[in-house]
C-alpha cells in the first residue's frame, strides 16, 4: 500500500483520471501473456516525458519500484509488478509525431500500436518491417524494450535494427536523448542499442526514431511440404547457403501440422511431416527468379508439395496454415511453455534432432514451429499442470532445450526476452563476469534499483 501523501503526489502529476488504485484496476494491470499475476499498489497513465520524469524522481526519492508497461502482451513477465509498486502505463503516449519522407525516418511515442504505425507509413509507400505476432495490439515502446522480432527478421532484422534514436527517462528522472536520425553517428557510447531489449530495466522510452524502407514492389508466397522434418530443416540451410535471403521462412513440424489439420482440415498430404512457408519480396522479376531457384534447390530434399500463391488472396490462404497454429495447440494439452531458442541457421536440423530426443526422454509433447529462416524456433512444451509431475518434467525439458541451443552456438531467447520466466536459467548462458558487467550498468543508471526491479539479471 502506498501512503496517502504519495498517492496525492502521483495524482498531482498525472491527474485524478489517470491514476487507479481500485482492486479491479490492480488486477487488470497485474497480468501479461505469461499467466502470472502480481498486484501492484497503483497504476499511473502519464502522457508525456515530463510526467514520467516527475513520477520517476518521486519513486527514486522514496525508493518505490516502478514497472513500465505497454500493452502487457509479453511472454516473459517483463511488465509484471512482482513485489508490488507502481505500474507505469505508456499507452496514452500514442502519437505518431512525424513521418519524414525525405529522410525515411519516423518519430513516434511509445504507446503507438505496431500495426497502426505500419499502416501509416505504408500509406506513404514506406515500410516498417518488424512484425511480431502481436503487432495488432503490442506497442512500439514494448517492441523496443523487448527487441521484438517476427517472421520478416530473416531478411530485414529485428526491432533494434530499425531504431535510430530514443528519448528516455532514466530511473533518476533525467530525460535524455540517444542516437539521432542520421545514418552514421559515433559520438559516445551507443546507448540506443543498449536500451533496445533492456526490458524496461534501464529507462522508460518516451520517444522513438525509426528508420524506414521503401515498400517492396511485390512479394511471392510459397507453401512447401516435406516428407521428413530433416528435409525441411535442411531446406532452410540450403536456401541460405545458396545466397537467397527470403523475407520469411516459417517452419512447422509434424505435431504442429497434426494439431492444425485435426481442427481445421486443410487437406495436407498424408506424407507431410514438415512444412516451410517461404516468402520472397522485392523487384517483380527478381522474386520470380528466386522462387524458381528455391523450388529447384529444395526439390531433392523430400519435397511432396510446392504451392505458389497467384495473388494476395491465395497468399493469405497459405498464411492461414501458419496463423492457425496457435489456436490449435491447446488440443494437445491445456498448458504451454512457449520458448524461443535460436541457433545459427545451419544448425536448425541438429537442434530439431536434439529436441526430438528430449521429447522422447521426458515423454511430453513438444511442438515446434517458428522462424526457422533466422534459426529461431518456437519450442512449445505442452503439459497438463493438473497431472502430478508434469510441471517438474516440463522444467527439466526446458533446461535441456536451452542447453541444446547453447551447445550449438545459439541463445535461449531470440525475441521474447528474459523477464521473470527465463531468469532462473540465465547462468546457463551468461557467466559471472558477464553478469557483473551488466549489473554495473544497471546500478550506474539505477542506483536505487527502482526501475523494473527483480527482472532479467539474477
Amino acid at each position, binding site marked *: 500500500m502506498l501512503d496517502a501523501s504519495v498517492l496525492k503526489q502521483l495524482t498531482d502529476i498525472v491527474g485524478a483520471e489517470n491514476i487507479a488504485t481500485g*482492486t*479491479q*484496476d490492480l*488486477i*487488470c494491470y497485474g*497480468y501479461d501473456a505469461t499467466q502470472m499475476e502480481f498486484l501492484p499498489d497503483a497504476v499511473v*497513465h502519464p502522457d508525456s516525458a515530463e510526467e514520467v520524469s516527475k513520477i520517476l524522481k518521486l519513486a527514486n526519492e522514496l525508493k518505490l519500484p516502478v514497472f513500465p508497461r505497454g500493452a502487457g502482451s509479453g511472454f516473459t513477465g517483463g511488465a509484471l509488478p512482482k513485489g508490488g509498486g507502481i505500474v507505469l502505463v505508456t499507452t*496514452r503516449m500514442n502519437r505518431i509525431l512525424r513521418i519524414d519522407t525525405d529522410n525515411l525516418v519516423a518519430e513516434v511515442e511509445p504507446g503507438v500500436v505496431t500495426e497502426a504505425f505500419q499502416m501509416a507509413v505504408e500509406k506513404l509507400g514506406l515500410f516498417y518491417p518488424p512484425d511480431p505476432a502481436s503487432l495488432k*495490439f503490442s506497442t512500439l515502446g514494448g517492441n523496443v524494450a523487448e527487441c521484438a522480432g517476427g517472421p520478416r527478421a530473416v531478411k530485414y532484422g529485428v526491432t533494434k535494427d530499425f531504431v535510430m534514436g530514443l528519448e528516455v527517462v532514466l530511473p533518476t528522472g533525467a530525460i535524455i536523448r540517444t542516437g539521432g536520425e542520421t545514418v552514421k553517428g559515433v559520438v559516445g557510447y551507443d546507448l540506443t542499442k543498449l536500451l533496445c531489449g533492456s526490458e524496461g530495466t534501464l529507462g522508460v522510452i518516451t520517444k522513438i526514431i525509426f528508420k524506414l524502407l521503401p515498400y517492396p514492389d511485390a512479394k511471392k508466397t510459397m507453401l512447401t511440404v516435406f516428407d521428413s522434418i530433416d528435409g525441411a530443416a535442411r531446406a532452410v540451410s540450403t536456401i541460405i547457403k545458396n545466397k537467397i535471403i527470403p523475407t520469411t521462412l516459417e517452419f512447422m513440424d509434424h505435431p504442429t501440422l497434426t494439431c492444425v489439420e485435426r481442427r481445421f482440415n486443410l487437406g495436407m498430404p498424408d506424407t507431410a511431416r514438415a512444412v516451410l512457408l517461404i516468402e520472397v519480396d522485392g523487384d517483380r522479376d527478381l522474386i520470380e527468379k528466386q522462387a524458381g531457384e528455391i523450388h529447384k534447390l529444395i526439390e531433392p530434399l523430400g519435397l511432396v508439395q510446392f504451392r505458389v500463391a497467384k495473388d494476395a488472396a491465395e497468399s493469405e490462404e497459405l498464411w492461414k496454415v501458419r496463423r492457425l497454429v496457435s*489456436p490449435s495447440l491447446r488440443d494437445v494439452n491445456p498448458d504451454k511453455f512457449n520458448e524461443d531458442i535460436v541457433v545459427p541457421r545451419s544448425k536448425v536440423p541438429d537442434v530439431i534432432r536434439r529436441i526430438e530426443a528430449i521429447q522422447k526422454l521426458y515423454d511430453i509433447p513438444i511442438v515446434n514451429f517458428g522462424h526457422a529462416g533466422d534459426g529461431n524456433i518456437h519450442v512449445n512444451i505442452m503439459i497438463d499442470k493438473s497431472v502430478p509431475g508434469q510441471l517438474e518434467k516440463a522444467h527439466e525439458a526446458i533446461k535441456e532445450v536451452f542447453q541444446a541451443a547453447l551447445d550449438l552456438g545459439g541463445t535461449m531467447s531470440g525475441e521474447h526476452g528474459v523477464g521473470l520466466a527465463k531468469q532462473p536459467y540465465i547462468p546457463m548462458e551468461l557467466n559471472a563476469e558477464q553478469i557483473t558487467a551488466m549489473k554495473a550498468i544497471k546500478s550506474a543508471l539505477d542506483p536505487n534499483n527502482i526501475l523494473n526491479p527483480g527482472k532479467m539479471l539474477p
Partner: protein
Amino acid sequence: MTKKQTDPLERVAQDMKKCVKCGACRANCPAFSTFQREPATARGKVALAQHLAKGDITLDDGTYAAMSKCLLCGSCVDKCPNQVPTDEIVIAAREALAQRRGLTTFHKAVGQVIRNRKLMNFGALAAAVLGPIFFRKVPSTSGLRLRFPMPFLGGSRHVPQIAKKPFMKRHPEVIKGEPGKPTIVFFVGCMTNFVYTEIGEATLALFRHLGCTVIIPQGQQCCGLPGMSGGDLNTVRELAEQNLAALEKYPADYVMTACATCGGALHKLYPLVIGKRNPELKARLQALADRTVDAAVLLQKLGLHPEETGAAEGMRITYHDPCHHRTAGIAKQPRALLKDTPGLELVEMEGADRCCGLGGTFNVYHYESSLDINAGKSAAIIETGADAVVTGCPGCIMQLSDGLKQAGDKTRVLHTVELLARKIRS
C-alpha cells in the same frame, strides 16, 4: 449469495481457463477502443470474473463497473486465438454480481417492465425500457448513476417517436395465407411493436406476398435482452419460458424475427441460460432456437424476388451488420436481396461489421462512450455518400439514427425489409 442458487460462474469455469491473457482482444474490442483501460478488455473481464469466482467479494464495486463496459458484441470471441467466449463469461459474471449484490434500481425497473406486457403497452413505460432513450447519465465518477426519466425533454439523445398504436394491436393473431405455403410464427420484439412499427408492417407484407400464413402469437413478450445487461437472468429465464409457450402454441414451419437482437436471444441466449438441471426445458428451447430464422434469411430462402416487391426510386445505400447477425453468420443474405432490388446501389462502408455502440443497456450507463464508438460508425457511413444506411436490427437503427443526427447528417436509416417491401406497400 444463498446456498440454493448455483454460482453462474461455474457454468463458465472451463471457458475462463482458456484465456491466456495474450492481449489480442485489445485490438478488437469497441469498449476498449473508447475507454482505453485494461478492465474494459475481454481478458480484463475474464481476470475479474476469475477473481469473482474465487469469492473475492471486495471486488464487487469496481467489478460491476468493469463488467458494465461490455457491449456483448462478440468481436473479441471472433478474433480470440483460443476462442474464449467472453460474452458468455460476462453474462455469467453479471448474473453472479446481481446475485451477490442485488439488482440496481434501474435494472429492477427494467425487469419489472419487460416482464409485464400490460405495463409495456402503457406507452411511456414501454419507452422507459426500450429506451435507454429516456435515461441520461449523471456525470459521476462511478459512471453508473442515472437520472430518471426525462420523457420528451429531449436532452442530447434524439428520441424516436413511440407509435400511437402498437403493431400487435393492429393485426389479428392469425393471418391466413395460401394453402400449401409455409406457416410462419412472427416474433415481433418490443422495438418493432412499440417504436418502429413500419418494420413490422413491411415484414408482414413481404411474407403475405409470398403466400405464407403469418401468426403473431399474442402471448409473446420482450425477448429479455435488456434484462441481461444488468445480470437479471431470472427475468430472462422467465421470459424465455413465456415466449417458448407462446411460440410453441402454433405448429409452424419457422419462427421468424426481423430484429437481430431478438434473434440472438432466441437463437443463442435462451439455451445458454437454462442450466443442465432442466434438460427438458433446455431441449425445447434448443428446438425453438433451431427453428428461429432472421426475416431476410428466410425471405431469401423462400425465394423472394425483390424486383417484384422492392424500392424503385434510385438510391445509394450502405449496409451495417448488426453484431447479433455477425455472430450468427448472417451477412451475405440481406446484401444479396438488396442488390437485386431495383434502383438500389450498394456501397460498402469501412468496418461494416463493427459494433454501433448500443449494446443493450450499455448505452444507458455509458452514453458518451457509446456515442464515441458510434462516431466512427457515423463517419464511415457518411464517407460512402449513401442516401441511406440499411440494417437488420431496430436497436442499431435507433443508435445509428442518433449518431448521424449528432453528426448533423441527414442520411436515412432503414431496415432491410422496408426497402424490400417498398413497391408492394406503396
